């Protein structure tokens, strides 16, 4: 049986900086998970993925990451791996937690 679809956001890394980025509702790439477009149907998720894949070559390793809605109605990571990608490493105040602060 096919796995039941769970909501996603589209994520990638920026080619030049390597930074983690997310696709928002304007079709732009942004830095914060919570600003990503929440993809709550399978059709929409794959549509956005294909659309983004066709655009520019300057984004790397596009994939759909599991997401859920927080109390503030903004998307947040549904798995701890995405939480680390969205925040940065836990041993130093580096990465997004420093840059987005």
């Amino acid at each position, binding site marked *: 049986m096919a796995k039941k679809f769970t909501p996603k956001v589209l994520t990638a890394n920026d080619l030049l900086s*390597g930074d983690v980025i997310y696709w928002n509702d304007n079709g732009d790439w942004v830095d914060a998970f919570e600003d990503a477009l929440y993809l709550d149907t399978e059709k929409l998720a794959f549509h956005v993925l294909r659309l983004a894949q066709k655009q520019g070559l300057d984004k790397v390793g596009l994939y759909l990451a599991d997401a859920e809605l927080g109390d503030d109605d903004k998307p947040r990571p549904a798995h*701890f791996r995405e939480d*680390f990608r969205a925040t940065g*490493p836990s041993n130093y105040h580096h990465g997004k937690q420093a840059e987005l602060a």
Partner: protein
Amino acid sequence: MYSYTEFDKEFINERNKQFRAQVERRIDGSLTEDEFKPLRLMNGLYLQLHAYMLRVAIPYGTLNGGQMRQLALIAEKFDKGYGHFTTRQNIQFNWPKLRDVPDILDALAEVEMHAIQTSGNCVRNVTADHFAGAASDEIEDPRPTAELLRQWSTDHPEFAFLGRKFKIAVTGSETDRAVTKAHDIGLRMVRNGDGDAGYEVIVGGGLGRTPMIGKVLREFLLVEDLLPYVESVLQVYNRLGRRDNKYKARIKITVHENGIETIRELVEKRFVAQRAAFGGNDQKLFAQIKEAFATPAYLTAPLDGFVELQNKDASFRSFVDTNLSEHKNPEYSIMTISIKAHGQTPGDATADQLRVMAGIAEDFAHNELRISHEQNVILPHVHKSNLPEIYARLREAGLATANIGLISDIIACPGMDYCALATARSIPVAQQIATRFDELKLEHDIGALKIKISGCINACGHHHVGHIGILGLDRAGVENYQITLGGDHTETAAIGERAGPGFAYDEIVPAIERLIYTYLDIRSDENEVFLETYRRVGLEPFKAALYPEQQIAAE
């Protein structure tokens, strides 16, 4: 130390020019990521969880002060001010930008370093005993052999696309400090009945998904037969090794499936032909390489200052007891600088610390440094009269932690704080264990103990061969840590036994604490180290400590 020849220099510069052009073509869109990825990986550039990561080879873990300074410069100019030493005797930079990488590679080339073959299905950076050339128990320095293997394997066309990566480790003494039994090929120096030095050739060891202790392929191989013999092993592997399944492609599976006897027969047959084909050229090269590893000009000086400080300063005494090892010259010591200050990230050194260590090597230690697979830095040749001054400088730089071989000298892979393949974090677990046992002031009492932590089944943190191994997994979307006990990375190598169900992130440190208290309780006396106790009593008492609720349920 080996210095690049004109040929080496040209080769590296050519490679760097090629890569610079490839990066430009990637940035201007002429190369897709699918086209570019294998090219960047061939030059050690990975894309990790938060950023790119550049893995730089430190061949057989040996480098000089100038090279260490250059690593400091790279850390500062192109990264976030630090570098991470790995269990493969490499250094990794966690935050380089793509545009800067060609400049980083040029900066490395200036000091005769590179990032070639630190990735991909080829013969990787050859690792060696970090006490090479200095250890009192050494038969011969293994580094000329390692350098010969490096030159032979670099860009070797026949072995550029093996079924899987291939790792070779060499040790020059019978004591195995290079984990030779967990490598695709392990070379351990031994003497035969006539007193000649040669190698015991071990094959098919490896950790990861299917951990295996290597098997002896040849009990004794003359040093001069090494290259044709190793080439024969590679040829047999290249032909028989599986390419249908990535997880069954390492030589350990080839050996397991075909049997060591079959492999031995095929290798010996190839070897006859290969030896003739080499025609002695390898020996000429080997003789030249050997000259580059001449013993340093040892000093002799009075030791009064050293003895005096030892008598009056308890922390210096503790440092001397814990971080020094016996050198073949009685006036000298081998010093291990701990890159495991309690609560810090194992293997991470700041640019300033790298510079301090470079300076000490230049001023007091015959300009030589080593990186150990245990993620520490070694000064292989330290005259004892210089110890007080070296200690003072280390202390000032936060590098004088006296914990080598103790519970806080933990190997930890980058885990989910950096690694794209990780299933859980390893660094914070190491930090917490070290901090906890420092608070308890127990670590010297506990004595020799190796904790090794990996953030996934790939086992870069060598957890299978830790006395206590910790493997971080993802269990239904939550970090979970599995404990193995009784592993051993030395010549008496063993794979640790799984203790039972895993522990949640906030339960793992208390679990380790229970293990340790049990050990302290049941050891026969304070000279019996953890591994000995484990071998004497087995898993059961430790299991009872780890899972007390099950004990109660069973009663």
